[in-house]
């Protein structure tokens, strides 16, 4: 009994931070994402943000996409009548899947010498009724005789842009379901967010019309370390704090390795989340100067424990809004209010509160979820009966 109690006590000590973090969901704590950056001198903080934006976008995902694409494409090419003529690439809703697809596929198509027909959209059409019309304009082939059909690859960079959760908003999906299997001289590559994909599978069994689906792999700690290396070198970021709490790490491991192991785990291997956590974990340590002559010298940047911020307490209306944003990836305010079936003024008020809490971001009128909140938000919504994603 005593042994059991001791073990429980040891477990409590080990997990006290996690338990306490679950208990405390104070609104004040949600302001934390920006905490470390505000602690940095403003000029340094903005330099760091710029450097992060400049990080190379080519990542290991491309290799996986190429290999899966080659395999499926060859299978289809050798037997276009019976093989699946599509590949779906799934990413988290806070990853810009469209960018990854556009960049990687243009190079691949050049190499394969196959005409590429990408859907040249950078967002969802503002009028829902236009989705189908615009899809037809860009992807429609009209009536073509079998002989004149040239094989081509059609790319839908982001399936979420082809629908809106409203009665008329799903007509784009109806159209795609019609054309996907209609023409076996076309191979389709479709990028989609996991939450939107799950929704479409429940609503219209979209999965049945598509071939293999590939989930973008999680970035490993080594990959993240390599990716962040230019910034670490440029800003001379040190990892001399030994408080990186992460299980299964050896004592002999360097602090930097332990930091990136934890970063990979808490960010679920998603680069957009990792970037936010990385920025949040950087602290400024001013140099201890004995005389005023050294005042001009900068202090050093130190990486603290990489952690996710707590979510504030969210009510049912906020859950519906946040789920809608995850479902569509990005939305304008009118589109969000249409997808919820609520008045725009009501949604606007709620969005303002969520933006203040740091959960929702707005760029050029487009609303998205702050990636750093995605892991916890996903769990919260899933616990509240929302459909998130069920891996095959």
């Amino acid at each position, binding site marked *: 009994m005593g042994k059991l109690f001791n073990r429980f006590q040891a477990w409590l000590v080990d997990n006290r931070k996690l338990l306490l973090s679950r208990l405390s969901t104070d609104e004040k704590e949600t302001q934390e994402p920006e905490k470390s950056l505000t602690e940095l001198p403003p000029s340094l903080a903005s330099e760091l943000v710029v450097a992060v934006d400049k990080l190379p976008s080519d990542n290991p995902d491309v290799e996986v996409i190429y290999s899966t694409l080659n395999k499926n494409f060859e299978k289809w090419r050798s037997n276009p009548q019976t093989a699946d003529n599509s590949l779906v690439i799934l990413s988290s809703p806070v990853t810009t899947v469209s960018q990854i697809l556009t960049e990687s596929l243009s190079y691949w198509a050049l190499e394969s010498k196959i005409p590429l027909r990408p859907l040249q959209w950078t967002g969802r059409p503002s009028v829902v009724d236009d989705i189908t019309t615009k899809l037809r304009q860009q992807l429609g082939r009209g009536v073509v005789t079998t002989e004149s059909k040239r094989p081509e690859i059609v790319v839908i960079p982001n399936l979420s842009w082809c629908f809106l959760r409203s009665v008329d908003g799903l007509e784009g999906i109806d159209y795609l379901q019609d054309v996907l299997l209609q023409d076996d001289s076309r191979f389709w590559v479709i990028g989609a967010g996991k939450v939107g994909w799950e929704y479409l599978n429940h*609503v219209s069994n979209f999965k049945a019309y598509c071939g293999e689906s590939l989930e973008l792999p999680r970035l490993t700690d080594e990959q993240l370390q390599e990716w962040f290396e230019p910034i670490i070198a440029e800003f001379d970021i040190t990892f001399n704090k030994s408080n990186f709490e992460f299980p299964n790490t050896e004592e002999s491991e360097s602090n930097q390795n332990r930091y990136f192991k934890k970063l990979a785990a808490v960010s679920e291997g998603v680069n957009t989340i990792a970037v936010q956590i990385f920025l949040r974990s950087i602290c400024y340590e001013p140099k201890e100067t004995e005389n005023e002559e050294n005042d001009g010298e900068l202090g050093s940047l130190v990486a603290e424990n990489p952690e996710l911020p707590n979510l504030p307490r969210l009510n049912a209306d906020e859950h519906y809004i946040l*789920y809608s944003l995850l479902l569509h990836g990005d939305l304008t305010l009118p589109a969000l209010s249409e997808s919820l079936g609520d008045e725009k003024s009501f949604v606007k008020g709620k969005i303002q509160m969520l933006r203040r809490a740091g959960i929702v971001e707005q760029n050029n009128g487009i609303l998205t979820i702050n990636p750093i909140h995605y892991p916890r938000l996903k769990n919260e919504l899933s616990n509240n009966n929302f459909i998130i994603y069920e891996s095959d």
Partner: protein
Amino acid sequence: MLLFFNLMNLILAQSTDDAAKETVEQTQQIITEITTWKISQGLIVLVISYIIIQVIDKLVIWVSEQVAKEWRLQVKQFLPFFRMMVLTITIVLLMNLFLNLSRDNLVAVTGTVAVALGFAFKDYVSSIIAGIVGLFEAPYRVGDRIQIGDYYGEVRSYGLRGIRLQTPEDNVVTIPHNKIWTNAVSNANMGELEAQVITQFYFAHEVDVELVKKILYRVAYTSKYTYLKLPILVILEEKPWGTFFELKSYPLDARDEFIYKTDLTKRAKRVFAKYNLHYPRLLNMKDNR
């Protein structure tokens, strides 16, 4: 002869006296000496029990509203058990305080109490027993949406004697537990978070049935309230006055039942107007009633 009668009277009087004495002794055996301190203790026990019940009520309800929706009803189920536990402990403490509970005394007390309650508090006791049976049989639990007689609503609390039902009109109806002996209890969600919502629509006979079905499915699939893991179904029936449609679906949270129904109706009507679908005419309804 007179002597005999006198003797008999004496014996009878003596036996009556003995019986009275015996009863007094028995009562004294059962009821321990009642002092001011004991009465004070009893009152303290009652007050503490009342406070504990109030605290438990508030705490369980608060916790149930804080946790994820999927755990809400499970947490609420603890409420009647905690209440029953506190009440049982209180009764035992009070009996221990005022009654001398040997085995014989216990039998005597139980018999007396049973007879007294049987006459005076028949319905009350019946409700309490039904409440205890209900804890295990669970025809309704806290958080369920039930219909008993004419009353429909969410079970907000599960008391010793009855339940409190919150109706859609926001009235609180108290229904004694003993209704479960005789009345049918219709439970919409049986401890689950989801409860089916049936939304009804009426059209003229000439309506395009396929179009209406497609619209209704779409309306349900695109409502923010719909729980998509459970099936959505549209059924239709021909009536003398027109075609009657029922859309059966589940909201994410049974509490949203009415707001969900409103959302479905509002959005469906907007699409019906777009397609200019005909509703049944009042004239037809009157003619064919």
